């Protein structure tokens, strides 16, 4: 068996099939990165999985999952101004959380070097939006490199680290979902570990590190000057690519995954346009682009999401009085979605129809019923939503937060009618409660999110006396992103730690009414929610059950594990369908005649469904015999 951890630390040069996220970790090793931090979020958690494959004692750098993205950024910055090359990575919307710190980084002299790895999500595969984080780079004067495939992820990170160290400035490596998750064979160089210098090298003389008034203005001047130096490098770097088809008429400027989609659809084209693929999104290599513009009659800017390149390139052509025709985005659809091969075909066809035999074929009709994501069999959130729904009036307002429990918005529960971002539910709920005496307000919150960004909202509800109920859905892990530990799980990435118990935190914040229950006790949970929501003060119900996906996986690893499953006593089943239509565990299947059966691929035998059957037709594992005896 090939061990990933061994591969990532191999001294000799080698080639291996890896995911973009894994290639990044080998690059961190080769670059001599010393501190890495993150908060989990798709498409980046596999970076941490690759790091975890290296035994802690052999890991050439420190890694932690921090409490949130802002904290992770601050940690990486602190390490870097002490002389240690650092890296922070997180998902697209994670940058919004980190922004307050992040926007200052470009002004600082980061002597150790710092790379910020962003996992943007065009197409919103697993995010609330498809925000284009290139905008942030412009407002904070930071260089951005954008790779298209795993091989480039590796090479571009090494470049970003070198550049950052040389100029003492932060450099962004912008990845997108299908660059993070793409796999291909990458040729890695040899690695000679250097003796680490652990000495604390922070010196205020390297600053100032106090961005205040006049100092801030001076720092901005320096940042802009540095950016111009980097622009010179962006012009010359070997990471730029041109694909010369000898076409004096047409050219395309593209980067990242859209570049690969473009290459793909041009395979069958008799007169393909020339292509320029700059490595840097920011600062743009203006001379190189101007040369490309001058040598073509018409240039298409093929750009996923927003028109960041387009506006700059058009300005450049105007400034230099170039006579080229520049074709940018022509319709609002061009701003939307991932630039897959068919999307690029469509975008290019709308300006140069003669390039292709025809428009892209219409999307085939999908005859199969949709399959939205679901809570897992045995999930404690399911029991919670089933019970809470019974405790509330249909007109009451429920506010969701980010996490597995967000899925409660779907039928049959329809719990959580608004969603914004990490930690937002309590304060949104507080606002919904103003002038509102008729409709109760219940907010939901996961436990990792509670520590991540929810505390200010909770403090505010206590401090400003908002009489809503917060239901803390505590499952002991960061489940949605792959079971990373958090402050209340009793472990961090590296070792066992003391739990920070949510109840004591709440008490410490002055919450007077706190109720606790295991969610499998559905009747009790329902009663507690009725009690809590009847109060005219802020109340919290801790609705607890361990993540059953994590629990079941752990059980399966133990020797002597035997799968348990509930059964349906068909003699007692009266087709009430409470199990399948109101409780909604995916384990229950419906046959054409309305009968219900257990999907033996799925049932984990947790038995949380048993109490939902009014005719007591669901039997616990091995229950048939017991019932027969009674």
């Amino acid at each position, binding site marked *: 068996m090939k061990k990933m951890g061994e591969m990532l630390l191999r001294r000799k040069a080698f080639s291996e099939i890896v995911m973009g996220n894994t290639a990044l970790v080998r690059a961190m090793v080769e670059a001599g990165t010393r501190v890495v931090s993150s908060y989990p979020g798709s498409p980046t958690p596999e970076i941490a999985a690759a790091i975890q494959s290296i035994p802690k004692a052999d890991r050439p750098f420190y890694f932690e999952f921090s409490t949130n993205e802002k904290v992770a950024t601050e940690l990486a910055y602190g390490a870097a101004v002490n002389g240690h090359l650092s890296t922070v990575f997180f998902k697209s919307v994670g940058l919004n959380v980190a922004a307050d710190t992040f926007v200052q980084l470009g002004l600082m002299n980061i002597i150790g070097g710092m790379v910020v790895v962003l996992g943007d999500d065009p197409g919103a595969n697993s995010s609330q939006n498809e925000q284009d984080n290139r905008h942030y780079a412009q407002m904070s004067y930071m260089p951005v490199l954008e790779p298209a495939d795993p091989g480039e992820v590796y090479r571009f990170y090494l470049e970003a680290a070198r550049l950052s160290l040389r100029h003492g400035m932060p450099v962004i490596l912008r990845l997108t*979902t299908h660059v993070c998750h793409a796999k*291909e064979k990458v040729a890695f160089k040899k690695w000679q570990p250097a003796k680490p210098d652990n000495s604390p090298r922070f010196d205020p003389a390297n600053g100032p590190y106090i961005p205040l008034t006049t100092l801030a203005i001076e720092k901005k001047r320096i940042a802009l000057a540095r950016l111009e130096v980097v622009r010179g490098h962006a012009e010359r770097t070997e990471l730029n690519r041109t694909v010369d088809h000898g076409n004096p008429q047409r050219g395309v400027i593209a980067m990242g995954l859209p570049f690969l989609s473009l290459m793909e*659809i041009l395979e069958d084209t008799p007169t393909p346009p020339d292509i320029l693929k700059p490595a840097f999104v920011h600062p743009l290599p203006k001379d190189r682009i101007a040369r490309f513009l001058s040598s073509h009659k018409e240039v298409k800017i093929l750009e996923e999401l927003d028109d960041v390149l387009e506006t700059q390139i058009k300005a450049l052509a105007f400034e230099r009085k170039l006579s080229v025709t520049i074709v940018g985005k022509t319709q609002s659809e061009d701003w939307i979605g991932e630039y897959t091969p068919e999307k690029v075909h469509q975008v290019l066809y709308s300006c140069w129809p003669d390039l292709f035999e025809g428009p892209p074929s219409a999307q085939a009709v999908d*005859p*199969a019923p949709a399959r939205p994501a679901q809570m897992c069999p045995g999930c404690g959130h399911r029991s919670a939503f089933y019970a809470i729904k019974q405790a509330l009036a249909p007109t009451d307002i429920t506010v969701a937060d980010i996490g597995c429990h967000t899925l409660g918005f779907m039928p049959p529960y329809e719990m959580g009618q608004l969603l914004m971002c990490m930690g937002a539910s309590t304060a949104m709920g507080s606002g919904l409660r103003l002038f509102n005496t008729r409709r109760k307000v219940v907010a939901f919150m996961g436990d990792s999110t509670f520590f991540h960004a929810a505390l200010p909202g909770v403090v505010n509800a206590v401090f400003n006396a908002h009489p809503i109920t917060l239901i803390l859905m505590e499952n002991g892990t960061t489940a949605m992103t792959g079971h990373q530990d958090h402050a209340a799980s009793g472990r961090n990435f590296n070792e066992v730690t003391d739990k920070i118990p949510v109840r004591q935190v709440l008490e410490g914040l002055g919450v007077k009414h706190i109720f606790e229950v295991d969610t499998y006790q559905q009747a009790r949970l329902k009663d507690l929610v009725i009690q809590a929501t009847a109060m005219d003060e802020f109340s919290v119900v801790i609705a607890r059950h361990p993540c059953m996906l994590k629990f079941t996986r752990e059980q399966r690893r133990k020797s002597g594990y035997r799968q348990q499953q509930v059964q349906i006593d068909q003699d007692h089943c009266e087709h009430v369908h409470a199990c399948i239509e109101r409780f909604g565990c995916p384990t229950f299947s419906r046959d054409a005649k309305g009968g219900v059966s257990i999907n033996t691929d799925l049932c984990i035998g947790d038995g949380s469904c048993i109490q939902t059957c009014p005719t007591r037709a669901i039997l616990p594992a091995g229950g048939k015999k017991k019932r027969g005896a009674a």
Partner: protein
Amino acid sequence: MKAFNIYLTGVGGQGIGLISEIVLRAVDHSGQRVKSVDTHGLAQRGGIVVSQIRLGDLVHSPLIPAGRADLAISLERHEALRAAATALREGGCLVYYDTVWQPLTVRLGDAAAVTIRDIDHLCRKQGIRVIPVFHPDLPDIRMQNMVVLGAIAGNGLIPGVGLDHYRSAMGDLMSGTMLERNRALFDQRAGK
């Protein structure tokens, strides 16, 4: 060489990640150039998981252009129909494990479940070769993917990839009893 495109799908939790990684590495062992990409994230919670694998020297993007898959592999019946209808080219090949994980709307009684007949009907219309597989009394449902892998290897569905390439790939990714059990099932299903 013209590209050969493989579209692998199923429901989160069915072991698509492992079978995809085995196929990817088996192609590599056969000496062919290969790229792939997985779509996970939210899909892990009982949603659709898709992995795309592309062979050939002229492949640029890891994403298969819609309707251009040569081989669709599904670990579940509903997803088999979806893959055949949306991803597979006319005259392609569909291999699927015939288990049913009903989607939400089917369980709520709002949509009809997909039947074997639905799949056969569509495939006949599109000239698609269909290979349904099933293995009664599997000791562990997480081995369904090996039954499918055996069918792929046994029928020689991926050009240039032989039984030993699959076996080497399995050896790259598994060890001990897990490897033994999976390899035994694979060999049995591949008709060694």
